[in-house]
């Protein structure tokens, strides 16, 4: 089980703040592909993925138990 968080535009698009994926493991790129297919208009090209609160590379592998977050372009400050 992998937890994924949605924020800002993505929270509004998906209609949820988080959900669980019943997967043992997948890469960051696969997670982005899954999101793009599941939620039309996700816009994966502009989105980073954080795994356990750290920015991850596309080839990084996400394991069951990891907490992921989709990070659209930030705009704090």
């Amino acid at each position, binding site marked *: 089980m992998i937890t994924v*968080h949605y*924020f*800002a*535009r993505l*929270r*509004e698009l998906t209609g949820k703040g988080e959900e669980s994926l019943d997967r043992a493991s997948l890469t*960051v790129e696969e997670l*982005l592909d899954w999101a793009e297919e599941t939620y039309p208009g996700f816009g*994966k*090209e*502009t*989105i*980073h993925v*954080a795994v356990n*609160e*750290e*920015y*991850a*590379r*596309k*080839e990084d592998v996400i394991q069951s138990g990891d907490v992921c*977050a989709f*990070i*659209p*372009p*930030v*705009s*704090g*400050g």
Partner: protein
Amino acid sequence: MKRFEIVDTPINPQAYSDLVLHPAAGAVTVFTGHVREWTHGVRTLYLAYEAYIPMAEKKLAEIGAEMEEKWPGVQVAIAHRIGELKISDIAVVIAVSSPHRKEAYEANEYAIERIKEIVPIWKKEIWEDGEQWIGAQKKYPEKGSGSQ
């Protein structure tokens, strides 16, 4: 109260300035970012900020560590507010103390640039006739994939 924190209540800059002041500090710079009424000719009614709180606090602390390494002797406190903010409310405060003034200015400006690059916080502008999540991220985080 922490040196690096996300808060959902009004920010008191003096509290963060007090956190970094010490007898060897000759200079303190405090930057506050405020909600501006007009941006590119469009009137903002209010802003809504959202954060991935635990990661945002971790990234703020990382920025503080970067600053203390780049400018030895500086001390840093940063807070960012989330929720709905009205015109002139403080969205972010950065307090930097240093033995000498030059470092206090430089380090402070560095902090706001880094916040805008890597800290997972998002701003929504609400106007009279609409609203939009803002995302002006130009540089990708160092550990991120270059092709995303």
